[in-house]
C-alpha cells in the first residue's frame, strides 16, 4: 500500500547549465580567435552558440513542491524497493531525479511514470534500520540553459535479514500439552501412525485395521500419535560483531535466527526471542503471524529499549517457559553468555548452540620481526585453544555445539539433531 508523505516546498537556486557553460566557452573562444587572428570564419563559428544563448530568460520557479512516498517501508535483504517522488510547480521545463544511496543501499535509475510520479528503484543489501539516501532533483528550464538543483532527504527503511532456509526442525522428546503439528510419543488424535491395539467398546469403527484383525482373529485398531506444539526460544547473541561487514558474526546470527523463527512459526510452534546485544531484550513465546513480525522487527532493529546488560543478572524467566527448546545463535565470544548457557542447562532446558564464529583476531598482520611474528602466532594459537575449550566445556555439559558458516542452509548443520528427537538429560 502506498502512503504519500507530506508535500514539502523547497527553494530552488538556479545557475547556468552545463550546456550553457559549454556554449559560452565555444562562443568566447571563437570570437577571441576571430578578433586576434582577424579570421572571419571563427566569428561565424561562434554564431550558432551565441544565438542559442540569447533566449535563456524563461519562467523559472523560485520553489517547487516535492512529495515523496515509499513503495514499502519493510524489505528483506536483497529485495528491491521503490521510492516514488512527485515534483509540482515546474511545468515549463524538464525534471530529472537521481537517488544518492546511503551505505548498503544500491540505487537504480529513475523512471518517470505517466501518473506524474517518478519511480526510483533501490535495494537494501544489509539488514537493519537503514537510511535510503538523498534525492537530488535537477530542474532544467525550457531552453535547457539554466539548471536548478535541490536535495531532499529520504525516509529510513526497515531491512529484515534474509532468513536462512530450514526445512527440518529440531524437536524435543517431551512436548507441551498444546495442540500443534509435531508428532508426540503419546497416542492421540493425530495423523501419524503409532501402532495397533485390541478393540475396546467405545472405539471408532473406522479405525479398525482389517488385515491385522484377520491375522489375529480379534478386532485390532490403528492408533495414532498425538500432535503437540513445541515452545522454542531463540537466543540471539549479537553482543560482539566480528568479521567482514555483510558476512560478520552478527549478520550470520540474525539470518540464522530469522530462518529459525520463520520455520518454527510456520510449524505452528510457540516461538520467543531473547536478544543479547547492547541491551537484553526479549519477546515471550507465542505463535502466529503477528509474533513472527514482532520477532523479525526485534532482530532487525536495535531500538535500544531493553535492559542494560550490566543491570541483568540472569536471563528473563518470562521468556523461558519450562520445557522449552533453547536454540542459541552465537559466536560464543561473550563469557557472560557462556555462563548463562551453563545456568540454563542446570535449570534443565534442552539447549543447542549454533556457532557462527567465522573470523579470527587479526594479530600480527603488520609485524615485521620474526620474534614478533612468533608471538603473534602464539597469541592466535592461545585464542583458538580458548575457543575450543569453551565449546568443549559446553559439550561436556550436554549442550551440542554445531558450526554454521552461512554459506549453506541450516538443514545440513542441524541434521544430526533433526533426524531424532532431542532428549533432555536433566
Amino acid at each position: 500500500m502506498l502512503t504519500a508523505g507530506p508535500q514539502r516546498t523547497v527553494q530552488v537556486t538556479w545557475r547556468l547549465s552545463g550546456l550553457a557553460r559549454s556554449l559560452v566557452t565555444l562562443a568566447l573562444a571563437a570570437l577571441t580567435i576571430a578578433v586576434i587572428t582577424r579570421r572571419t570564419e571563427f566569428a561565424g563559428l561562434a554564431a550558432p552558440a551565441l544565438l542559442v544563448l540569447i533566449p535563456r530568460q524563461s519562467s523559472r520557479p523560485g520553489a517547487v513542491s516535492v512529495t515523496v512516498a515509499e513503495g514499502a517501508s519493510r524489505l528483506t535483504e536483497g529485495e528491491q524497493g521503490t521510492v516514488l517522488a512527485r515534483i509540482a510547480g515546474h511545468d515549463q521545463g524538464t525534471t530529472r531525479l537521481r537517488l544518492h544511496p546511503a551505505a548498503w543501499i544500491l540505487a537504480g535509475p529513475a523512471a518517470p511514470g505517466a501518473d506524474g510520479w517518478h519511480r526510483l528503484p533501490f535495494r537494501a543489501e544489509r539488514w537493519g534500520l537503514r537510511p535510503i539516501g538523498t534525492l537530488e532533483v535537477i530542474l532544467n528550464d525550457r531552453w535547457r540553459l539554466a539548471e536548478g538543483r535541490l536535495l531532499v532527504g529520504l525516509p529510513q527503511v526497515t531491512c529484515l535479514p534474509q532468513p536462512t532456509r530450514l526445512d527440518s526442525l529440531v524437536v524435543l522428546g517431551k512436548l507441551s500439552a498444546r495442540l500443534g503439528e509435531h508428532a508426540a510419543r503419546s497416542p492421540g488424535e493425530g495423523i501419524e501412525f503409532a501402532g495397533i491395539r485390541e478393540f475396546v467398546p467405545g472405539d471408532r469403527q473406522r479405525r479398525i485395521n482389517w488385515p491385522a484383525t484377520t491375522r489375529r482373529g480379534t478386532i485390532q485398531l490403528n492408533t495414532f500419535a498425538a500432535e503437540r506444539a513445541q515452545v522454542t526460544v531463540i537466543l540471539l547473541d549479537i553482543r560482539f560483531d566480528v568479521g567482514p561487514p555483510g558476512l560478520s558474526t552478527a549478520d550470520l546470527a540474525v539470518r540464522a535466527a530469522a530462518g529459525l523463527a520463520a520455520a518454527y512459526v510456520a510449524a505452528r510452534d510457540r516461538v520467543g526471542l531473547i536478544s543479547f546485544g547492547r541491551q537484553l531484550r526479549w519477546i515471550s513465546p507465542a505463535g502466529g503471524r503477528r509474533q513472527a513480525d514482532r520477532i523479525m522487527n526485534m532482530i532487525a532493529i536495535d531500538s535500544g529499549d531493553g535492559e542494560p546488560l550490566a543491570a541483568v543478572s540472569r536471563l528473563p524467566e518470562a521468556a523461558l517457559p519450562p520445557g522449552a527448546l533453547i536454540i542459541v545463535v552465537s559466536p560464543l565470544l561473550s563469557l557472560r553468555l557462556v555462563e548463562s548457557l551453563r545456568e540454563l542447562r542446570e535449570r534443565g532446558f534442552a539447549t543447542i548452540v549454533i556457532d557462527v564464529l567465522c573470523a579470527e583476531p587479526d594479530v600480527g598482520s603488520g609485524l615485521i620481526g620474526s620474534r614478533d611474528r612468533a608471538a603473534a602466532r602464539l597469541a592466535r594459537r592461545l585464542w583458538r585453544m580458548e575457543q575450543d575449550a569453551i565449546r568443549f566445556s559446553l559439550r561436556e555439559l550436554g549442550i551440542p555445539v554445531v558450526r554454521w558458516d552461512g554459506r549453506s542452509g541450516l538443514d545440513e548443520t542441524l541434521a544430526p539433531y533433526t533426524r531424532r528427537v532431542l532428549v533432555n538429560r536433566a
Partner: protein
Amino acid sequence: MRGYARARPAFAVIALVAGTVLWAALPTSAARPGSRPVLIVASLCGALTVARLLTDPSAAGAGGLRAGPGGGFGRGLRAGLRALPWAEGTTVAVLGLEVLHPSRPWHTVVLGVALIGFLLALHLAETDAGPAVLRPQLPLLAAGLGLGVLSVGAAALPAAGPGSGWLAVIAGAAALLAAGLALPV
C-alpha cells in the same frame, strides 16, 4: 535492444568528439609547428569527456543498480573526472588546433557545426534526454548556421578590405554580448 537504445547517445558523443578532433587536425602536413601538443591535449580532453560520461551513473546507458558510499578507488576516479570541465577543454583545444592551420573558411564552419553537435549530444547524453527537447532551439541553430555561411562569404573578402575593420568591431561587440550572457542567472 533497450540497452543499445540507451547507449546510443554515448556512441554519438564518441563519434562526434573523435570526428571533431580529426577534422580540426587534418591535414597534419599543413599545420603550423606546435599543433602536435595541441592535438594531444584535444585528444586527451575528448577521451576524458567520454570517460566522464560513461562513469556518470545518471547518464544515458547507465542501467542497473549502483552502490552507495564505500566505492574506494572507483569513487575517487569519478570525483576526479567530474571535477574539471573536460568538454570545454576539448572545445578550446579543437579551436586552437584549427587556428594552427591556414585559413580555410568552409572547413572551419563545418568544424563549428560539428562542435555544436558534439556539445548538444553530450548534453543529451548527460541528461538522458531525447533530441526532441532541443526542438525550440532549432530555428536559432538554423539562423546561426546561416550566419556561419555568411561568415564564409565575408572571409572570401580581401583581408585588407574596407569591411575587415567593421568585422573586428562586430566580433568584439558579440564577444561582450557573450560575456554578458555568461553572467550568473
